[in-house]
């Protein structure tokens, strides 16, 4: 069990490193998906199978697809890769790495001080989650729906373009689809209570 935990942890970190260092956006996305999948494994190990499933379906599935759509649509080719290469001079990394290193050091410090006793992993059943969600967190759900509503309207407004302004009808279609999909996808996740309140 622990072994699995550490392996998937290592994979996640490695994949993330790859994600942020890739020049090609599609490559990076693929690494990111790997990372997400390994995190899903970790979730599972931590006793959250429902979340693990959601991670795979929504995160790796829906959100990443969204990204890929956009990247593909923009058709970032060789040129973009070149440019990225130029932008990413080694010097660029130093500052952020120092910051991040300190951050990690701090986190490591605070995690190492009190030895984390790893409890026997107990599963928290999806049922419990569901009960909590529609019990104490009912208002939270309602609010989340408002959140999504806001996102929907916002994305719609920004994405919408008048037909005569179009230069690239294809892209527009993709846009609209994506925007709608974005809303729908998530809504599908937990059954939006219509009408809110």
């Amino acid at each position, binding site marked *: 069990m622990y072994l699995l935990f550490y392996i998937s942890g290592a994979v996640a970190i490695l994949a993330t490193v790859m994600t942020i260092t890739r020049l090609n956006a599609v490559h990076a996305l693929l690494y990111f998906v790997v990372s997400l999948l390994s995190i899903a494994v970790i979730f599972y190990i931590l006793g959250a199978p429902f979340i693990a499933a959601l991670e795979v379906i929504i995160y790796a599935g829906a959100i990443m697809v969204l*990204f890929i759509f956009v990247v593909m649509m923009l058709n970032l080719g060789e040129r973009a890769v070149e440019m990225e290469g130029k932008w990413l001079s080694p010097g660029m990394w130093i500052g952020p790495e120092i910051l991040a290193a300190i951050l990690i050091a701090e986190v490591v410090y605070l995690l190492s001080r009190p030895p984390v006793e790893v409890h026997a992993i107990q599963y928290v059943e999806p049922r419990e989650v569901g009960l909590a969600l529609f019990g104490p967190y009912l208002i939270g759900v309602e609010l989340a729906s408002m959140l999504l509503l806001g996102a929907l309207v916002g994305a719609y407004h920004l994405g919408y373009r008048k037909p005569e302004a179009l230069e690239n009808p294809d892209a527009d279609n993709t846009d609209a689809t*994506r925007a709608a999909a974005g809303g729908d996808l998530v809504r599908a996740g937990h059954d939006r209570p219509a009408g809110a309140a």
Partner: protein
Amino acid sequence: MFALGTIGLLVRRNLVFTLMSIEIMLNAAGLAFIAAGAHWVQADGQVMFLFILAMAASEVSVGLALLLRLYHQHGVLDTDSASEMKG
């Protein structure tokens, strides 16, 4: 992972990567909640993750919409090019 996301945020100029980095950070935060929830054996952590998920999705949708706008108007995704305003 959180730190890596941070690095990505700071280093990459391409808006796509910036958004991705944010996703990484959010994911890391979610992971932390799950871990904490597991630690206390409560459902709360998972509930929180769900909300994070919703938020990440909305964030990405609006973010990508903006990204498209930017690309259509300027043809680049460089965050630094969008620095008209300063001082």
